[in-house]
């Protein structure tokens, strides 16, 4: 029965095609941008600029990837980044390693708050993270409204592509390894695909969920460090709308919003790259921000229409 259906499915409906689509999309968008900008987007200088915008979203997206694989959602990245950046900046006057550690711990703590309320009180992650988003955005605003918080010169001096690439690649490799070669990846996917059944198969679901949120927070904290290196001082708008950007990136990368077995690790890389290229390309092409938004919306619509897994319509946990 299943076999027959499969055969009758058009190629566009097949999982293989859908799995490839984000890659195709990335190539198409890169190609289009290359063509429209007469290759300017590939100039080393531009490319560096483009990459410099990729690092911290990609690190954040890696953490959120785990949360979304659970079928949950996290709206706190922006505010976490803001708060963690403040911590990093302040601590950077004392010691750089301490600053890094502080950032990660701050993020992890926020993630732990999310995870705790999500798990213990059985609240939807959606609601929990909206609340904490407001909360930490408020905290961030409180500290930064008067004046921007500067970071130490020492940390700004670290600004080099090599370091940022290094961190990003290290994060990706470690996360990929954990996702692919340890129980963690399997457990997270299992919870996303069917929580009760996973529980009955011996997965400690509550722990897995909690840890995923902590990981997301911790990685956002690390991203805050990268962010501080780049921007040097923290204003109230730090990390504004980051959550939406990450959500869109991951969905563009082909991550099913309901999580589960069909997630691919490549979703992170492809999605983030696609979003950044699109963003940069549109800026380079000189569109107004309004038009940029419109185009982004349309591209997003097309991708979603093509890639979405219609079988898995269900609520977000």
């Amino acid at each position: 029965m299943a076999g027959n259906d499969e055969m009758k499915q058009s190629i566009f409906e097949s999982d293989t095609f859908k799995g490839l689509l984000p890659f195709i999309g990335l190539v198409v968008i890169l190609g289009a941008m290359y063509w429209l900008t007469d290759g300017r987007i590939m100039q080393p200088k531009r490319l560096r600029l483009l990459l410099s915008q990729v690092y911290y979203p990609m690190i954040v997206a890696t953490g959120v990837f785990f949360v979304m694989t659970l079928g949950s959602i996290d709206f706190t990245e922006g505010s976490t980044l803001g708060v963690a950046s403040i911590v990093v900046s302040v601590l950077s006057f004392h010691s750089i390693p301490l600053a890094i550690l502080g950032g990660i711990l701050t993020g992890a703590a926020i993630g732990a708050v999310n995870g705790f309320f999500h798990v213990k009180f059985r609240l939807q992650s959606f609601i929990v993270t909206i609340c904490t988003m407001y909360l930490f955005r408020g905290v961030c605003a409180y500290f930064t409204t008067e004046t921007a918080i500067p970071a130490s010169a020492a940390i700004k001096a670290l600004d080099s592509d090599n370091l940022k690439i290094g961190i990003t690649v290290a994060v990706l490799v470690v996360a990929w390894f954990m996702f692919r070669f340890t129980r963690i990846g399997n457990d997270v996917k299992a919870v996303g695909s069917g929580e009760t059944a996973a529980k009955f198969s011996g997965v400690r679901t509550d722990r897995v969920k909690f840890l995923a949120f902590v990981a997301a927070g911790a990685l956002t904290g690390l991203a805050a460090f990268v962010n501080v290196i780049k921007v040097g001082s923290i204003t109230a708008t730090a990390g504004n709308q980051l959550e939406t950007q990450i959500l869109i990136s991951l969905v563009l990368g082909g991550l099913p919003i309901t999580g589960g077995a069909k997630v691919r690790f490549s979703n992170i890389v492809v999605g983030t790259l696609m979003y950044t290229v699109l963003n940069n390309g549109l800026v380079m092409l000189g569109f107004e921000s309004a038009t940029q938004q419109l185009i982004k919306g349309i591209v997003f619509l097309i991708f979603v229409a093509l890639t979405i897994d219609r079988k898995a319509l269900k609520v977000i946990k």
Partner: protein
Amino acid sequence: MTGKNILEMRGITIEFPGVKALDGVDFSLREGEIHSLLGENGAGKSTLIKCINGVNRKDSGTILLDGREINPSGPYEAMTLGISTVFQEVNLCPNLSVAENIFVGRQPMKHGRINWSEINRRAEELMSRFHLDIDVARPLSYYSTAVQQMTAIARAVDVQAKILILDEPTSSLDENEVQLLFSVMRQLRDSGMGIIFITHFLDQIYAVSDRMTILRNGHLVGTYNINELGKVELVTKMVGKDMDVIFSLKRANVPEDSPVMLKAENIGDGSRIDDMSLTLRKGELVGFAGLLGSGRTETAEMLFGATRAVHGEIFVDGEKVSIRTPFDAIQAEEAFCPEDRKRDGIIGDLSIRENIMLAVQSRKGFMHPMTRQEQTELADKYIALLGIATPDCEKKAGELSGGNQQKVILARWMATSPKVLILDEPTRGIDIGAKAEIQRLMLEMCGEGVSVIFISSELDEIIRCSNRIIIMRDRAKVAEVDGASCTQQDILRIIAEGAA
């Protein structure tokens, strides 16, 4: 045995907030008989007992003891009237001696002091009547539950009870102890005492009692002599569902000239089913047999528009209808209970009322709402008609048992008074009682002229109910056999090997 009635209860009604625990129950107890009181949990046995011994006040009705009306206000008064009760949980003091327990509250006094020797002597005497040779001065907790039970009985006997009520006395006794208790009971009976005996064990009822009274949902089912009723009948009466109904179901009688109600010609969905034809006459029940995936469900779904038939024609009651969605099918007066009750049938978070009214309402369209009262009436009607076990129609449907959920879905469709009813595995995963009831309902509906398609994996129920059986295999109809004359083996063979 045929002594006069010592206790007569007439029209006893007791209401608790929201429930009638007893509704007009008559009960009589003769001198020198053991009378079993039976019923499921919550049938009203304990309430009746508590009414006799005054724990519960009756709201109406009369209790006559030896012809005189009594109205005990509590167990103590009842005891003085000669009604003693031994409760399930023995209400004795484990730290007191056996003798003390027997006489507690009415110790024989001598010169203002308790006469211990008198107490022990009389206690020993009593116990020996029960062939129990024990040291009555020892604390009660020293002895087994059986002895404790006997002590309680002895206490009851010593107060010169005319009526002894034993509420589940045997549940914690072993086989020998039960026999001991029985012999005591018989002894007391022979001495003219009337004993009311409550137990869950059917064997024990047959072993010891003379008559039995059965209660169900607070109503009296009847009083019977012990040899009048077999075990299965007894169970049947207790649960109110006829276990025998399964064996006495009669398939619908379809007259030769009964008009064709549903006709499908060469329908197919373009992928799974190709070219399926069938006819269904008014009042006929057609069974679909076949393995899972043989196309039974797919055909049913097509007939109901749950999947769209890409070719072929469907006629309902002689008229060609275009069925593209379930909505169209409902307009054409079809109804469909899907296979996967949880996924496609019950709407768990909504109340029974809302679940039942849904199909009627969707046929009307949302701009013509039924009032709350209409909905409640509709729901209550079907709750009563189908015997859905629920306190009221506002209970969430998801909290019901499988059988009751199935009945709610059935009610949803019965409420639309369909011409054609398609039931896909309606009896799967529900217990025997409910199964029998659903089959009975199905056949009753046939009797009322509804045409039914019945899909099931249980061959015996298909054979039992169907007028005709369509056998499917590899997504096509391979045979159509007469329900009355085929056997399970025939069908199995066709399923396994294809049509001969």
